[in-house]
């Protein structure tokens, strides 16, 4: 089985290196094909591993080689395939394979076609390292690796110039890429600190050793470690207040958004919490904070999605919102439900993004849904895909989202967190509304795009076929809930609803469903017939607040970026040059000027010299007298 592990892990690396060989050459179709095939192999190997793990109920643990060894620290390259990681592996490799095939079509006309595949495969490799590693340092490799790949991919169209924030809130791909990397780095520091805490208290970074030590650790240490690790998770999973980068990351090519910023990388934070569940289980306060923050982000992001006009940004907000759901579940202790929602979300959200990619491809990179409409004629399959994905997202039975999201909302109720429950239910309604607002504005109603002289066309067939597995999974994934439950709880702590909740499960489900259907109905009423804009609403305070993302990016720009730049400038020009360096130069000048003025003593006049000699004599005598007096 180790063989399959290595195949699953290294096939993407091989793909990346192979594509990198042609990185600077013009487009070569075979690069995309071979990369996709290698990813497919990785997927198959993951499936084999999943079956094996399912059959035997045991994980596979290999240590490839030693990485860092200094003092008492010993970090190997060790890989662990157990129920959690194999789930992630299957999800990651499946979505990546689809995205790779999709990209062959989507990146069709891009001159950096080969480079794109190199980055994309490198990302998959990093992600696999992240999920498969058997220690925190290895996790950190993947953690940073996906960060860099995300940087490369967001900034893929690096040649675009910077524009003003009014024109494009993300300024430019390269700006968005840097923002994503730097924000993630802030969180990574938290992650590192968490690693340090664990190392100095347990003497190791291996998951099994660390988790075995937990009973011996003091509560303060555990809380500190859990908090620090969660700060790391907040960055990667774009939780408030580190969330701004995710919407800006939509500057990257759409397959990237589908793979990285919806299905895989952003869920790394959730994965970390699930992976380190023994730590979070014994720190209820931190867990509750996670749940509360998750709930808040779910609502907060959904509210911003309500008014946005950008096709991809709406989906990005919904991703943010769904990540909030996952954290809520994980924070409430329902780790397996969080993981289940993670997987289900990966399928339908990737599908949604790829559908959006189709629309963009058809609309010549136009993203404003107010300029679209009536696309259902020319893009029937895309409409179906996006419709299915949106239904799944809205949580309409029997699609995947219903099962996973409903379970999370139930958990909140079950835990007695009724405020959280209420917010989550409300958010479910909002989710349904904005998803279908987007779908209807894009595909129904009048053809607003005709004003702009665009002739939309459906995506290539093979691309549509490649998207099919995701669509199918988005529909049926929910049915595997119980099978997944029994599979995953071999490793993760079981979480069952109490009998009381069980009684009410239909009522609860009905409430959520009512909100969801209500949201969809509202969207249908408002948008299916075409766009009716209301000046009054759009000038309202609430609309503006939401449209400007609660002014948070502006706040960051005005109160962090600009002051930082200003202080830097000040430190350089005033402190470094005018104080530190000037002191040094001042000392030098003092000596120089001292010498220069002492030079004036050399008048050449003997009498003067004699006078100076007299001064010297007197001072020597003075010294002698004083020393004599003191001594």
């Amino acid at each position, binding site marked *: 089985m180790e063989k399959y592990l290595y195949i699953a892990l290294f096939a993407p690396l091989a793909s990346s290196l192979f594509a990198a060989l042609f990185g600077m050459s013009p487009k070569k179709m075979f690069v995309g094909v071979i990369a996709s095939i290698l990813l497919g192999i990785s997927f198959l190997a993951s499936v084999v591993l999943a079956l094996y793990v399912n059959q035997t109920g045991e994980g596979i643990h290999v240590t490839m080689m030693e990485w860092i060894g200094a003092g008492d620290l010993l970090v190997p390259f060790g890989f662990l395939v157990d129920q959690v990681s194999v789930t992630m592996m299957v999800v990651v490799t499946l979505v990546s394979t689809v995205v790779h095939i999709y990209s062959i079509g989507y990146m069709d006309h891009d001159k950096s076609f080969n480079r794109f595949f190199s980055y994309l495969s490198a990302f998959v490799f990093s992600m696999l390292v992240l999920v498969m590693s058997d220690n925190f340092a290895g996790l950190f490799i993947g953690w940073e690796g996906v960060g860099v790949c995300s940087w490369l991919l967001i900034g893929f169209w690096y040649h675009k110039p910077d524009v003003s924030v009014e024109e494009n809130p993300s300024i430019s791909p390269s700006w968005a890429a840097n923002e994503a990397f730097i924000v993630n780095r802030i969180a990574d520091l938290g992650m590192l600190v968490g690693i340090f805490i664990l190392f100095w208290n347990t003497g190791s970074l291996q998951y099994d050793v660390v988790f075995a030590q937990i009973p011996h650790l003091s509560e303060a240490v555990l809380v500190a470690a859990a908090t620090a690790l969660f700060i790391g998770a907040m960055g990667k999973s774009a939780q408030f207040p580190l969330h701004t980068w995710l919407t800006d990351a939509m500057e990257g090519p759409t397959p990237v958004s589908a793979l990285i910023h919806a299905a895989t990388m952003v869920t790394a934070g959730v994965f970390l919490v699930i992976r380190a569940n023994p730590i979070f289980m014994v720190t209820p306060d931190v867990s509750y904070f996670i749940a509360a923050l998750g709930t808040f982000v779910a609502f907060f992001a959904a509210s911003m999605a309500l008014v946005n006009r950008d096709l991809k940004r709406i989906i990005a907000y919904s991703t943010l919102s769904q990540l909030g759901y996952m954290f809520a579940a994980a924070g409430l202790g329902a780790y397996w439900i969080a993981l289940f929602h993670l997987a289900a979300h990966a399928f339908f959200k990737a599908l949604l993004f790829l559908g959006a990619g189709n629309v963009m491809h058809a609309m010549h990179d136009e993203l404003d849904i107010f300029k679209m409409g009536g696309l259902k004629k020319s893009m029937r399959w895309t409409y179906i895909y996006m419709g299915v994905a949106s239904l799944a997202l809205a949580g309409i039975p029997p699609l995947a989202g219903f099962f996973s999201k409903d379970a999370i909302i139930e958990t909140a109720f079950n835990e007695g967190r009724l405020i959280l429950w209420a917010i989550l239910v409300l958010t479910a309604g909002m989710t349904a509304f904005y998803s279908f607002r987007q779908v209807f504005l894009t595909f129904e109603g009048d053809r607003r795009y005709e004003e702009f002289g665009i002739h939309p066309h459906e995506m290539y067939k093979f691309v549509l076929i490649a998207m099919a597995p995701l669509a199918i999974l988005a529909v049926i994934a929910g049915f595997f809930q119980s099978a997944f439950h029994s599979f995953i709880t071999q490793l993760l702590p079981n979480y069952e609803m109490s009998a009381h909740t069980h009684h009410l499960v239909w009522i609860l489900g009905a409430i959520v469903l009512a909100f969801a259907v209500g949201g969809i109905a509202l969207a249908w009423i408002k948008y299916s017939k075409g766009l009716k804009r209301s000046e009054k609403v759009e000038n309202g305070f609430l609309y503006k607040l939401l449209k400007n993302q609660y002014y948070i990016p502006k706040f960051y720009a005005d109160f962090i970026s600009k002051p930082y730049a200003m202080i830097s400038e000040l430190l350089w020009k005033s402190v470094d040059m005018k104080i530190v360096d000037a002191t040094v130069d001042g000392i030098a000048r003092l000596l120089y000027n001292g010498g220069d003025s002492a*030079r004036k003593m*050399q*008048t*050449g*006049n*003997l*009498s003067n010299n*004699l*006078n100076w000699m*007299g001064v010297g*004599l007197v001072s020597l005598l003075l010294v002698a007298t004083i020393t004599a007096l003191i001594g």
Partner: protein
Amino acid sequence: MIGLSHYLILSGLLFAIGLVGILRRKNLLMLFFATEVMLNAANVAFAATSHYYGDLTGQMFAFFIIAIAASEVAIGLGLLIVLYKKTGTLDLDNLATMKG
């Protein structure tokens, strides 16, 4: 009773007088005179020490100082004469060729 200190104090005063001369005067010949005063002051100190310690070394030094003073005067006056012939003055303020 006159002790060593009396002599030394006297010699100190004489030395200071010589020093004032050296510092104050600009005429080279006067500088020579002032130097002589200082040398004499030193001689007195030597002789006094020699006397009060019953050691002849002090006198020897005074003796050599006199010898050196004599040579100095011989050469110094020679140089002064050369200088005077060359510049027509013995004033130090006119001799500033070493100005830095």
